[in-house]
């Protein structure tokens, strides 16, 4: 379970997260929607400790992410994250990209890591690209590789940060298919996305962010069908 | 208190040496740049197999120590009885040496102009010459100028080697004074300072130009 309570964060005068609280249960898929600069991506970075918070608390499986004594590297192995820019490691093959962390962080043997890597790459449809370097892949393939890389750590949670925003339109579908598959398999996911139809389809709950505040949260039917807040309605009207 | 036997005359002698350094640098850069542009444009606009012999020769200038080049050309002119002064030999060798580097800069600069830009120019009805002078030249110049300034500084430092042929440039003049007053550290420091005073502002200018142009892109 991910429990976010009264989190505040600001860059100088700019409030990026303003008293945000959100609980995500095991197996749940939560989408976060909102305009750019609304603090959605920052929230994901805070969940796995890549960005510090000023006050409030974030607990993952009861462990305080931002507490001094927390082994953040160990905690991060439980939380996979995929970025808008896929950040493939250019000097490693596709398989090496995926197996590096299982081998070096989880200390798995090469054979074991390779088996996991193969399985996950199969899973995202890259089973035939194992020994290719990322530069030879399309953006969509690199992004699916990044998903496999996160999955190879066998995380409990997956965070997706606008993973399709930097892709050419015709490549978006293949990445969404991969995420759809994960959702069906019961992975706990938080996704920041601009793909409204997709959010509506896969999410258990949808949250709307604006200027660092979570204005509204509810089932897809509620948010898309009958938004309670004028900000939400306005935003949906502008993007749909 | 710090004491030195370095006299005002000696300082003038050093400055004279610096003058020779600058003079040789000037001729080397003038000749090297003209040749470099000719070679570079030729190499950028002609198929590689036609320019391979030239490329090979220019590569030699970059792969053999300058000192050896100076000695060789000087020995050759003596054998051939050309009776050219060491100063002229130095200028010729340094100009050729510079042209090898400069042609690479020119070639790289031209290659860095996007083909699409040039196609756009041609599609507007510009001739090859107009494309070269109106489009390629201004863009390539921006790309090349910072490196060209760097090359100038490099050549200025490399002129120190002509002392081997007996020319009294800055470094050699400092050596002459050292032999007399026996204060190597101080005299060399003064000579180094003169090099620094010449090159540091120019290198800063180059860096600033590069930054400014990058921002505008």
């Amino acid at each position: 379970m991910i429990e976010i309570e009264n989190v505040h964060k600001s860059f100088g005068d700019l409030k990026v997260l303003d008293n945000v609280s959100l609980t995500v249960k095991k197996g749940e898929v939560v989408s976060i929607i909102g305009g750019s600069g609304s603090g959605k991506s920052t929230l994901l970075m805070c969940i796995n400790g890549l960005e510090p918070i000023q006050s409030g608390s974030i607990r993952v499986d009861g462990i305080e992410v931002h507490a001094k004594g927390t082994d953040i590297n160990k905690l991060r192995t439980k939380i996979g994250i995929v970025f808008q820019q896929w950040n493939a490691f250019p000097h490693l093959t596709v398989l090496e990209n995926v197996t590096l962390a299982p081998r070096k962080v989880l200390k798995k043997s090469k054979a074991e890591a390779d088996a996991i890597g193969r399985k996950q790459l199969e899973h995202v449809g890259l089973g035939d690209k194992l020994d290719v370097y990322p530069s030879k892949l399309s953006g969509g393939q690199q992004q699916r590789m990044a998903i496999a890389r996160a999955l190879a750590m066998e995380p409990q949670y997956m965070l997706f940060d606008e993973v399709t925003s930097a892709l050419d339109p015709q490549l978006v579908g293949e990445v969404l298919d991969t995420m759809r598959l994960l959702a069906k398999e019961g992975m706990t996911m938080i996704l920041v996305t601009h793909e409204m139809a997709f959010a509506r389809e896969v999410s258990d709950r949808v949250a709307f962010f604006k200027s660092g505040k979570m204005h509204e949260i509810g089932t897809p039917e509620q948010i898309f069908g009958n938004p309670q807040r004028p900000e939400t309605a306005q935003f949906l009207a502008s993007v749909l | 208190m710090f004491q030195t036997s370095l006299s005002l005359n000696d300082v003038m002698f050093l400055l004279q040496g610096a003058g020779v350094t600058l003079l040789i640098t000037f001729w080397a850069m003038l000749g090297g740049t003209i040749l470099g542009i000719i070679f570079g444009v030729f190499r950028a606009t002609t198929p590689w197999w036609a320019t391979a012999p030239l490329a090979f020769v220019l590569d030699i200038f970059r792969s053999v120590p300058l000192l050896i080049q100076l000695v060789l050309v000087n020995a050759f002119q003596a054998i051939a009885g050309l009776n050219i002064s060491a100063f002229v030999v130095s200028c010729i060798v340094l100009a050729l040496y510079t042209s090898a580097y400069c042609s690479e800069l020119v070639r790289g600069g031209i290659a860095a102009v996007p083909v699409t830009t040039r196609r756009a120019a041609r599609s507007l009805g510009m001739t090859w010459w107009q494309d070269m002078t109106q489009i390629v030249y201004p863009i390539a110049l921006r790309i090349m100028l910072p490196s060209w300034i760097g090359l100038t500084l490099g050549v200025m430092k490399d002129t120190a080697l002509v002392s081997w042929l007996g020319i009294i440039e800055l470094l050699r003049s400092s050596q002459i004074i050292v032999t007399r007053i026996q204060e190597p550290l101080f005299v060399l420091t003064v000579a180094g300072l003169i090099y620094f005073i010449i090159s540091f502002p120019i290198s800063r200018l180059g860096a600033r130009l590069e930054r400014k142009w990058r921002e505008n892109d």
Partner: protein
Amino acid sequence: MFNYTFHWRPAIQALPQMLGGAVVTLQIAVISMIIGILIGVVLAVMSGSSSKILRGIAGTWIEIARNTPALFQIYMAYFGLGQFGIHLDSFVALLSGIAFNNAGYLAETFRGGLRAVPATQVRAARSLGFGPISAFRLIVLPQMFRAVFYPMTNQMVWAILMTSLGVVVGLNSDLTGVTQELNVKTFRTFEYFAIAAVLYYLIAKAVTLGARAFAYRLFRY
């Protein structure tokens, strides 16, 4: 014009001697590169530190190395240090001069190499649970190495060319030094130096081509 007969035979006979000099030349270049790389890394780190003193030392070193002639730097080692009672022989003076020069140039190269790896790479590595040190070692360093490899090869060629300056401070064991000794004995300047030029060219090409082959194997991506 040209009332001169070229005598290549003695020059060719001196080839083994000159090859011996070439070995010394390579030795100096390699050692000066190793020292230069080690100091260059330290200088690059220092110039990025928050301490003003460390930044000042690194900056001074880099600027002197880049803005004065290599021969000046060798003179400083050979004559200048003498005033502190440090008397280096011509071999050590040449080696230190070139190493000083290498370090200054390589420090700039390494700084550029660090910038060549985007910060998002570290972020991606950290998000997989890598600590800061292993993220640097496994992700940043290999990519940085690629960015600096070509400039490092260039510096190596420069180091080889710079070794020829040893003759100016009286070194007689490297390729130029050996050639100059033969020249002084026979006054066949052109022949001997022509052969030396060919040898330098071959050494420089061997280094460049070797590095290219190595890079081809190493950087498959």
